């Protein structure tokens, strides 16, 4: 073989111009979920005129606000090929810490918020330390911390909900008018967090390293990426995001509720999976997760408006999760 010849082995995909625009759009993992979201919105808009109104759309975003925020942290962790079962319980703990300190102890609300964020970040850090330090599987670690956070929440709160009236703590529940519709600051803040996470994951080295670690941890390590530090950062950041979700939850309900968030761990995983992120790590996007969270919100709201019993919303969500993963697997098998 001549050493100057350009190499293009048989059976290789056409590489002349790279993937076409259409091909790239269709293989972008967020496109499928986006099409589904649009179809769902169209379907319910036809079924009921009450669906596609500014008020209802604003309500949907408010309803997905807490799970949607938790799902940002969940996405980060799943991208590293991990999983977090503890996020709902950690969020509940954060809520109680903030409410208890601000209401019962009379602490400055800002300080109470900071301490709440510190508590949830500490839980994230603990998860990360156990995963990287002792090399325990994330599923087991976060199953443990789920129970620990749940117990601490109930011990610390004495099983009592705490009503919050501080305008600082409920700021994110307040609304401002946007094109005739009242939008909460919390909704905007959640979207802003998504944009920030999207930017970091897509356009910074640390973000690309998250994908590399989830995709091939050994290769990532051998290229000189400090994979332990990266994982620790991811889990701690997720903890911080859960703290923000605590604050959003308080703002939405005006209470610190020790029983909040009990299914949020699975709901956040549902949003991630519906958004096209692979549970095996290294593939997916946080924008997909936002779409996934909105899909759940749209279906719940739509079925409710159409008058379907709420248990069917759960049934349909379950079917969608399986469908999403099956489609993901099928498309992977075809391209691989």
């Amino acid at each position: 073989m001549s050493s100057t010849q350009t190499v293009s082995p048989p059976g290789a995909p056409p590489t002349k111009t790279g993937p076409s625009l259409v091909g790239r759009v269709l293989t972008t993992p967020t496109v499928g979920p986006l099409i589904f979201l649009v179809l769902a919105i169209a379907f319910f808009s036809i079924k009921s005129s009450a669906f596609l109104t500014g008020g209802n759309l604003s309500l949907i975003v408010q309803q997905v606000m807490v799970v949607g925020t938790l799902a940002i942290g969940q996405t980060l962790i799943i991208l590293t090929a991990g999983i977090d079962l503890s996020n709902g319980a950690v969020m509940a703990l954060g809520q109680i810490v903030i409410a208890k300190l601000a209401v019962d102890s009379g602490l400055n609300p800002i300080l109470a918020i900071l301490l709440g964020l510190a508590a949830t970040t500490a839980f994230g850090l603990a998860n990360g330390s156990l995963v990287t330090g002792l090399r325990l599987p994330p599923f087991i670690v976060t199953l443990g911390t789920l129970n620990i956070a749940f117990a601490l929440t109930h011990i610390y709160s004495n099983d009592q909900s705490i009503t919050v009236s501080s305008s600082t703590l409920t700021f994110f529940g307040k609304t401002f008018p946007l094109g005739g519709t009242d939008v909460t600051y919390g909704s905007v803040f959640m979207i802003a967090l998504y944009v920030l996470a999207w930017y970091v994951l897509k356009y910074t080295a640390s973000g690309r390293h998250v994908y590399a670690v989830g995709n091939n941890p050994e290769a990532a390590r051998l290229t000189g990426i400090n994979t332990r530090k990266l994982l620790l950062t991811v889990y701690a950041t997720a903890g911080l995001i859960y703290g923000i979700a605590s604050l959003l939850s308080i703002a939405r309900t005006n209470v610190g509720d020790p029983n909040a968030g009990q299914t949020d761990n699975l709901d956040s995983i549902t949003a991630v999976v519906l958004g096209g992120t692979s549970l095996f790590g290294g593939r997916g996007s946080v924008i997909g997760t936002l779409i996934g969270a909105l899909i759940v919100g749209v279906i719940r709201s739509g079925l409710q408006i159409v008058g379907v019993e709420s248990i069917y919303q759960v049934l349909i969500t379950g079917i969608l999760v399986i469908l999403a993963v099956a489609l993901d697997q099928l498309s992977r098998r075809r391209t691989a």
Partner: protein
Amino acid sequence: MTSSRDSTAAPKPVLQARDLVKRYGSVTAIDGADFDLLEGEILAVIGDNGAGKSSLIKALSGAVIPDSGEILVNGSPVTFHSPIDARKYGIETVYQDLAVAPALDIAENLFLGRELRRGGPLGSVFRLLDRKRMVDESREHMANLKIGIKSMKQAVETLSGGQRQGVAVARSAAFARNVVILDEPTAALGVKETGMVLDLIRQVRDRGLAIILISHNMPNVFEVADRVHIHRLGKRAAVIRPHEFSMNDAVAIMTGAMVGEHIEGAPEVPAAADSPRA
């Protein structure tokens, strides 16, 4: 480095080891091994399974820390605590099957762990990657090595096995200043793709880098190597030139069937001999 190749001076050693020892409990994986890699050559390392060649290579690439002995880069003693240390001395390793992140694209893989950021506050404050420059430099680099892939934005998993190996080799060649170590680069490849990777190895050498090629494939070794280091029982048994010895001789040395006077014709360090590429 390039100029000395054209001169009549003997090629200088780039990477050497003296009397390396590595024990794992009662097993001695490296038993006083010596090693010499000269500038601008392809040195194949062969040896039977269990001869300790992979331990030797790991010590040279920083993946294993030897118990005793000396490693020299360009004549100066060095200590490697990790592959990252070795990389600081311009030694890059392509690990078998471990080299790439399949879901990331070619440019991202080439620059993984060494990403380029934009200049100014966009880079320093917002940590924004210079995607265009990485794609452009990747394209240029792949073209220099005559790897025929046009789009740097396609995921590595869409490539054939040979092309993937090409990406892994290109990454190492792009960042190595002294040595590229290739661990079984053709192990999983078909005949045609193997030919492509061997061509690529020659391309990398012709760009002035010294190459260590670990391979089980004797015909490949004899086709591409300038010299062959034969490892046996944890140490160097001989260094031969492919055109002076047959594959059967090499196997005989590997297994211990040929020793002593038969291989004296191949001095262990042919520094006084002609250029390895003559």
